[in-house]
């Protein structure tokens, strides 16, 4: 059965008399937090806390995407990405898309207010929760507009990080990971 298209209608419910904001799908209460405050928080807490924060943000996105997909195991690539990107856009983390480099999966987030370390944890958690598979991520690149995150296992992520630390370009690292020229 084909996955339903993403429907953002009434995705967020603002209860002004009660002063709360809720998401429609899981009826979670959300908080509109200024990005500057979030950045201050990320800079002030240790990395594991940042990763925990990121994973918490991603898990919420993944869960809502899986709910809208109904059967994420059989969802096509386009449908899966559409629901995941839709939920990420509603959460305000940026425009999400994917790139397939051979067999490697790379998630691209544009115009995200989140820091790189927070993005990596968020992406990994969102994919794990939405797909039900265990995944690790490594930040390939990050600039003012775009961030690229590799999705793989723990060993692959470690090799990618080692190559990037030695000065290898992220594209070359992805090629090497698939048995290309060393």
């Amino acid at each position, binding site marked *: 059965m084909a996955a339903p298209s993403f429907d953002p209608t009434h995705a967020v419910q603002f209860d002004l008399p009660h002063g709360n904001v809720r998401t429609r799908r899981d009826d979670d209460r959300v908080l509109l937090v200024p990005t500057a405050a979030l950045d201050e928080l990320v800079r002030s807490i240790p990395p594991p806390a940042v990763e925990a924060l990121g994973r918490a943000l991603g898990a919420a996105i993944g869960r809502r995407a899986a709910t809208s997909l109904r059967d*994420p*195991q*059989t*969802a*096509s*690539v386009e*449908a*899966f*990405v559409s629901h995941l990107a839709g939920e990420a856009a509603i959460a305000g983390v940026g425009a999400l898309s994917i790139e*397939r480099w*051979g*067999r*490697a*999966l790379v998630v691209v987030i544009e115009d995200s207010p989140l820091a790189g370390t927070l993005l990596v944890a968020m992406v990994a958690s969102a*994919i794990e929760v939405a*797909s*039900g*598979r*265990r*995944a690790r991520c490594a930040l390939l690149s990050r600039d003012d507009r775009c961030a690229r995150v*590799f*999705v*793989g*296992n723990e060993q*692959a992520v470690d090799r990618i990080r080692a190559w990037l630390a030695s000065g290898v370009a992220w594209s070359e690292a992805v090629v090497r*990971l*698939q048995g290309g020229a060393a």
Partner: protein
Amino acid sequence: MNKGEAISRLEQLLQRVRLRAGQPRTVSRADADSVATKAVGEPTSTRPRMPSLPAAAAGKSQDLDSEERLVAVQSEPAEEPTVVLVAAASDSIPPIDVTEVEIVEEEEEEEAPISSRRTVASQPEERLAEMAFGGEEPRQPLHTPPPESGRLPAAPAVDFDPDVTGVRNAAPIAEHHQEPESRRELVPEPVRPQLSPNDRIAEMIAKAQSFAPQTFVALLDASVSL
């Protein structure tokens, strides 16, 4: 007649000539001319004279012995000593067999043309005079002398009327000259290969790797398996 008889006759003839060589010459001029004309004017022939011929000429001259000697002397100036004998018939002298006698007449040399480079051969009489009294000054060769060496005088300047000669209408000479080597333009002559398209050049060994996951989970599994 055998050889012995011929030799004996010739010896008798020689002896008679020697005996008469010391006698005074009494031959008449007319007879000498007639005999000389007879000896020189007749064509050269190696055929022997028949004995009957002297009998025909017997009535013309009474002194045949002098005639024989005169003829023999006139033929001596030739380079080769050729003895010309004209045997005249006589009642007192037996006929002489002259089968071995050869009458030789010198061919007259053609006079060389003026333009010929051949030197003009002197006549026999002139040669005799040169041998007797010494040579005269050498004759100038009858041909054009070679030009003198040295500078030649310039040709006289000639004025031509261009209206008459057509020089004015003629094309300039410079246009007819070939252009110098540096200004000559070279045109390349390309040689291109004739290649036809052929789809058998490439050989496919296996299908190219194609990864087209149907689901996102399949893509995720592939990436995680790296």
